[in-house]
């Protein structure tokens, strides 16, 4: 069984954290990953920085810009991840944009992911149709699970098509927004989470975008298997550095009153 499916065996909602590779400092990547696992994170999205991240808000873009200035690149990331599986056992997903993958070479990229022990990929600007036509075979050959996004505007028929191309989970974007732009979920957000839950998809769902604290985390987990936290964690790293990662995870898991 792959690591992502195994992670979903647990009862409690999954805490999945996004961290930009090479941020705050170039060589922080591995330490951040290890600290996150030690603090109790269930899954990690490693952000491969891109100069023009269309789907991300200012917090993640700024961290990407910083990471690129620090010298992060696809090649450097794979060098850093060498041997990561000796110390980290939770699922690791690379989240990035398609152009750097295209330049690295899609086949070479998949091979490097498999070698490093990467379990899945989130590439928001690689659309479903192109993926299934050109890349699904090679991703799957290297044991990489492709994770697609859906939004409140995604039609039911398209969700079904995305379900068919998925094999672990679907990333449910909480609202029609870029990352880091909401504060608490409204009734219509919750109705959307429930509507998706009621579809009884054959793969799991996790909510992302707009989760910043225990309250939004528990809202998100009500109708899904967990949540991805990105901008809030990047802000935490900016403000408190890499030494207090456990505080962030503990605060998320705290019972909301």
């Amino acid at each position, binding site marked *: 069984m792959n690591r992502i499916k195994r992670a979903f065996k647990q009862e409690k909602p999954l805490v999945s954290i996004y961290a930009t590779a090479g941020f705050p400092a170039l060589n922080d990547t591995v330490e951040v990953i290890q600290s996150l696992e030690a603090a109790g994170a269930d899954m990690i999205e490693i952000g491969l920085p891109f100069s023009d991240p269309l789907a991300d808000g200012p917090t993640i873009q700024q961290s990407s810009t910083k990471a690129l200035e620090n010298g992060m690149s696809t090649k450097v990331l794979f060098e850093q991840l060498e041997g990561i599986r000796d110390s980290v056992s939770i699922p690791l997903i690379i989240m990035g944009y398609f152009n750097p993958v295209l330049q690295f070479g899609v086949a070479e990229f998949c091979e490097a992911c498999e070698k490093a022990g990467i379990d899945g990929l989130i590439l928001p600007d690689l659309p479903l149709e192109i993926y299934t036509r050109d890349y699904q075979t090679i991703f799957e050959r290297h044991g990489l699970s492709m994770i697609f996004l859906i939004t409140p505007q995604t039609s039911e028929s398209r969700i079904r098509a995305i379900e068919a191309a998925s094999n672990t989970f679907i990333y449910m974007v909480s609202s029609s*927004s870029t990352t880091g732009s909401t504060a608490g979920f409204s009734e219509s957000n919750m109705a959307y989470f429930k509507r998706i839950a009621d579809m009884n998809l054959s793969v799991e769902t996790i909510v992302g975008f707009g989760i910043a604290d225990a309250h939004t985390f528990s809202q998100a987990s009500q109708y899904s298997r967990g949540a991805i936290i990105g901008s809030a964690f990047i802000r935490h790293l900016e403000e408190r550095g890499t030494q207090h990662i456990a505080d962030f995870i503990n605060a998320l898991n705290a019972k909301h009153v």
Partner: protein
Amino acid sequence: MKTTSYHVDADGFYGEFGGAFIPEMLYPNTEELRNTYLEISSRPEFQLEFKALLKDYVGRPTPLFFASRLSEKYQTKIYLKREDLCHTGAHKINNTIGQILLAKALGKKRIIAETGAGQHGVATATVCALMGIECVVYMGALDIKRQAPNVARMKLLGATVRPAESGSKTLKDATNEAIRDWINNPVDTHYIIGSVVGPHPYPDMVARFQSVISEEIGAQLLEKEGRELPDYVIACVGGGSNAAGIYYHYLDLPQVKLVAVEAAGKGIHSGHSAATSALGKVGIIHGSKTLLMQTSDGQITEPYSISAGLDYPGVGPMHAHLYASKRAQFISISDDDAMTAGQELAKLEGIIPAIETSHAFAVFDQLDCKKDDIVVINLSGRGDKDLQTYINYFDL
């Protein structure tokens, strides 16, 4: 509708270029456009209003002017398609008129746009004022400083100008911010892209609205020369909207030679250039697979040109295909040669061109035009906006 290899295919590709490489958040927005743009824009009432506005508001048809002194100098017959005489000073408004009518037909209440030098921003603000629709223009924070008169124009026209503070704070970042706005406002907002770039159907939609340029040339040439087809069609290319417009009706007629002129900046290999065809590799920018200036790691780089309208790191997918298939000849022209050509046009024909456009006038050394060949150059914009650059360059 023509369906040959030089026009867009059913999936939104020009050969291997184009498509819609967009985050899922944008899928409903672009799907709505994809499903409606051809049907709405071919409705008789749409065409009637579009043509009436182009005639009475924009000032079309634009003249096709025989440039006799320029022709004498280069020993060939040079005609100028006078897009510089359009309302707001450039061809950009052909597209914004088309898209504002489309937005109205779709019931949109709010318009967003990106702009580099400000020409497309002004053209968008203009049609929004005309229609009484809210307008937000994203512009790189650096460009806002460099292009103060156009910022003032947009404000006078009632638009909100929002600075793009991310990345390199120029056109590509303004485009990113506009796309993000569209992600955050997926239902009531239409995004008017200013060039033949972005995800399908934008490149084709913008090319169609700009195709009025080549559509007019046939009858105009017939009247002046007794034949409809020119031998050469020349246009400058940044994203490529004026080129797409003047190539459109000739794409499938190989006897008409297409010449695309890019900005070499301080020299193709100087590190300060915008010659995308020479320097770019296949990649993804703003939802489109095209030729793109980037690092070996796939990070998009910042182009340079003395003309703010040509410094886009990509090129429209139609043009990437015209380049790869060799249907069009691509030439890059340096800042210096463009400035000299602009000054020459001013002195020989009494027309001060936009510096973007000046690039298209600097190619005659590299073409083998015969005395009886008919050459049409797209005079895509006028030079008023560039006066300060001319003043600084020539120490006027």
